[in-house]
């Protein structure tokens, strides 16, 4: 108690602390007020501080009483750093030594090349009708996983909406007004480039989606490309021009209906597969655009869903709405 000083406020260090906390400009000269009123004020402040200190000390004492059985944790905290470093080093050595014993990359004798892969490669085209084995695999054989992923995307967009959606009018107006405060508004270079790029990007996305069963790509990749195109449009031309063709109404209809139709398509596969019935949807000639049964439609629905989600993320972060 005797070592405690009460004049901390006027010391050099308290001023540095205030400067670090942003309460006072360190470089500005401030005359020291010697009037009685100021002294009274400072005395009152000191009294309040002392009361605060007493309360804090009591609270700390209570906490210490409660924590007394946990005293052995002190040793643990001392050892914590050493043990953490040791565990990290051990895990690194273990993992690296395991990697040494892994089979070589791409070797035909690898244990992953078992009868499952053989079945996919040999009978995949015949059973699913898709030339691109990967798409046939993830939308047909492993359709259940892909359905879960699409639902995860939907839930993620809903969560971002819960966190960032602005409903009130005044706040929304201020967001619209302050949108370009760090950027050049309506930059002519970006707009000219966007005029050329956006049609190409959207066309490429549609191509990737529609050819998902023939060439590399599929619903997710194509949807992400289309979403990126929409984001570029909004970044270049502003909210109002994008809202003319893609607003909240379109978003709701497109996203929910895509998800519903997607689940309907997959439910057909699940029902038929679980009961051992034959697939009655004609698969067509492999290699044609209209072939491979429901995979083309599932690709379109997944693409719509992903494009909507990507654009919704951007719009929600940017303006708190669609």
């Amino acid at each position, binding site marked *: 108690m005797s070592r405690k000083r009460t004049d901390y406020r006027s010391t050099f260090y308290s001023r540095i602390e205030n400067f670090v906390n942003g309460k006072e400009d360190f470089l500005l000269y401030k005359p020291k007020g010697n009037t009685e009123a100021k002294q009274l004020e400072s005395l009152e402040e000191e009294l309040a501080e002392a009361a605060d200190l007493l309360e804090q000390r009591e609270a700390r004492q209570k906490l210490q009483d409660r924590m007394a059985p946990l005293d052995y944790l002190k040793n643990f905290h001392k050892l914590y750093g050493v043990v953490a470093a040791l565990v990290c080093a051990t895990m690194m050595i273990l993992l690296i030594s395991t990697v040494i014993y892994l089979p070589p990359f791409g070797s035909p004798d690898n244990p992953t090349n078992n009868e499952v892969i053989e079945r996919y490669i040999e009978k995949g085209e015949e059973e699913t009708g898709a030339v691109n084995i*990967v798409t046939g695999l993830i939308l047909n054989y492993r359709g259940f996983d892909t359905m879960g992923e699409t639902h995860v995307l939907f839930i993620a967009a809903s969560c971002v909406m819960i966190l960032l959606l602005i409903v009130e009018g005044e706040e929304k107006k201020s967001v619209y007004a302050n949108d370009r*405060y*760090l950027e050049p508004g309506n930059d002519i270079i970006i707009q000219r480039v966007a005029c050329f790029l956006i049609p190409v990007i959207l066309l490429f996305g549609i191509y*990737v989606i529609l050819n998902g069963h023939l060439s*590399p*790509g*599929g619903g*997710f*990749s194509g949807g*992400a*490309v289309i*979403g*990126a195109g929409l*984001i570029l449009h909004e*970044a270049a031309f502003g909210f109002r021009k994008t809202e003319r063709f893609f607003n909240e109404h379109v978003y709701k209809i497109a996203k929910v209906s895509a998800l519903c139709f997607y689940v309907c398509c997959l439910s057909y596969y699940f029902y038929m597969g679980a009961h051992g019935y034959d697939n009655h949807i004609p698969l067509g000639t492999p290699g044609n655009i209209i072939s491979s049964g429901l995979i083309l439609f599932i690709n379109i629905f997944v693409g719509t869903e992903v494009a909507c989600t*990507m654009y919704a*993320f*951007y719009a929600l*972060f*940017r303006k708190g709405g669609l």
Partner: protein
Amino acid sequence: MRLFILILAVFLIVCAIATCVHKTLLASIIIFMAYSTIMSLIWAMLESPDLAITEAAVGAGVTSILFFVTLKKIRAVEDEQKTD
């Protein structure tokens, strides 16, 4: 071809370390975009074009843009007009 893959791998490691080490958040995100672009090239060379398209669209495009917008939202990008 093998030399090209080696160069790409070295760039990948350099980008990964630089993303963590760099002090400016904005520069970190731009380096992260470069990382994703190199990664999509590597996917294409490992004969998985599906992943390459997705990585280029999601990793280099959408994720980085979301990072930028978040930086703007939390006012971490420096306001040049005010400091002038």
